[in-house]
């Protein structure tokens, strides 16, 4: 069970990393208009942005 002493801190760090990644996604506006992201495939290249 000694491996837990490594895995628990490791999982905590991982969780904080995931939170940071999600924060970047939210704050760069990626979750603002979810409907549009789904429809993007139907648009022309230059319209999709």
């Amino acid at each position, binding site marked *: 069970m000694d491996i837990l002493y490594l895995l628990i801190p490791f999982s905590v760090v991982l969780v904080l990393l995931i*939170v940071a990644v*999600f924060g970047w996604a939210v704050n760069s506006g990626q979750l*603002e208009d979810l409907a549009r992201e789904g429809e993007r495939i139907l648009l022309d290249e230059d319209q999709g942005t």
Partner: protein
Amino acid sequence: MSATPPSLRAADADARLLAPFTAWPDGPAGAALSQFQVAGMHCAACSGIIEAALLKLPGVEAASVNAASARLALRWQPSRVALADLLAALQAVGYRATPDVAAPAREMRRLESRQALWRLFVAGFLMMQVMMLATPAYVAAPGELSPDLDQLLRLGSWVMTLPVMAFSAGPFFSGAWRQLRARRLGMDVPVAIGIAVTFVASTGALFDPAGPLGHEVYFDSLTMFIALLLLARWFELGARHRAAEALEAVAGALPAAAERLHDDGSSERVPPEALRPGERIRVAAGEAFAADGRIVEGQGWVNEALLTGESAPVAKAAGDEVVAGSLNLDGVLVVTVQRVGADTTAQGIVRLMQQAQSQRPLAGGMLDRVAAGFTASVLLLALAAGLAWWWMEPSRAVAVAVAVLIVTCPCALTLAAPAAWLTASGALARRGLLLADLSALERLCTVDTVVFDKTGTLSEDRLRLRRHWVQGAEGADADGLLAAARSLAGLSRHPHAQALADGSGAGAWTAVREVAGRGVEARDADGRLWRLGAPAWVGERPDVQARLAFGSGDCVLWLDLAEAPRADAAEAVAALYGQGRRVRLLSGDQPAAVARMAAQLGIDDWRGGATPESKLAALRDWQSRGERVLMVGDGINDAPVLAAADVRVAMGQGAMLARSAADALLVSNRLMALPQALALAQKTRRVLRQNLAWAALYNLACVPLALAGWLPPLAAGLGMASSSLFVVLNAQRLNR
């Protein structure tokens, strides 16, 4: 320009800046009524702080904040205080306000919802991880979990709780601080104290298990509590943003430019603000009308969903009125501008809705006071419980005090009324009834008598052809003559002629001449002179039953025009009777015409030939007998009678509606909205009572449990967050 003194220029620029979100009810020299959107609000107590901060400024006469929609209505003197100072004063107490015109408000909403989502995610995601690390301590058999490992798991939980405390719970702390500084107790105070106490106690237990704070850690219940609270606020935020968006849909329907026609046939594109009444604009298919006006050329289908909520297009032809913001679906129309800018129907509606939204419901204010007293007693109770337990069993004192603080959070209490009223007014707006006054919902519940005006209310504004016949009948073709009469009527502006023409195109007439007070005369292709107008003018022996006549020499077609009841008038009257309400018809028209309309609609209680004074007397008489009267009128000629009624509903079209004193506007002109509104008002009251009963019952049940120490903080957090959710979701039922 350079000669203008700088102060005057500044005032001028200020006035232009204020224009999009400000009304001047007492004229340009008087007080201004401005609408703002406020960011950073999350409870009912915030509105009091904002109001107090603004009222301290010179020149501010009244400030009212609606907590549920985060709108601020401000009555102030622009000459005595600058807009920038107002905004700075708000900033100083921790809120941001932007003028309530669409774009900046939308941007602010976007940031607000982004921020809320981010906070919710941090709290929710870390809550799950903390729970995962907390599970071993719950499920392990004694001795199975080594003390080292246990301590490591707790340390991990603590690390993951830090971001939740520092970031996600931020609004609770800043809100509590603001409330304390303003000496007003809102729901943020007990929440913040509860969170802080739990975190400090758990941290102390983690690093010093033998210390005075005991050895229990509550990181799992703490994060869960914060996450649930943020979830409830997320739903609340969504409801508020939807209401704001619905308003903006109305405000944003105006096109950015209009095509103005000049007399020489040329045209130019100008912004809608540059249009003046009397000018002509051309509206292409698919374009929205930039101003209220009357069609002079062309015909087509128009979508007036903005006004009526009815998505079926309406046929419009020359002579019909169109309203700004509605959409021309096909055909090119030329429109004479009648009303522009703030006078348009659409802007009147927007202003009314904004006023209704920023008006704090009366009972809401009462609930605020109740909540403040409640919070104070909760704080005392928690303190007393903590002390009592400290004396009996010190290890549980903190847990009990925390449970009491968390479980009694009054947010369900403060959310109960605004959530229900806002949802109900949104549901009514979709049915075409706009509430200008939210408290009207309460008064609607008590209405037992509905009084209708006749003309323009139960009947349509315009007359319809009821009967046509030919006198002498020497083989004359009545229908052929009628078609000719209609084509001549299309050339006249007289309301009777307009009613007769009913949108049919004008025929090939020459030498058309309007004779004031008589009618119109013209020559047909053969040069024969025809007249359309007063019976005595057209024929030698006028038929007493005719209102209009059309003829040439001996060949005369007699016409009778009558008011047509609105399509759903009979259905609405029947529905009102079905709800057990009295229905009365009160009209200034000829008793015979009133009797006919009453018989047609099945109203047995009618009164005709009434003057405004006798209408008012009749209304007062009914009220003195204990009846609660809902009066429906067109808001123009029966204004004093409307004003005396308990609930006033005006049929809404035209510029009058912006100034009328009505509680509600029936913009769709669909009378069925009335019985629906009455039923919805009852339902709203039911929901409101359920909400209040739930909040009271919940507190009655949980506080003794928490005091007795039988309610762990986790269960307390669950219970209080779910009671907030219950209140908001229960109110959403009104939306169906």
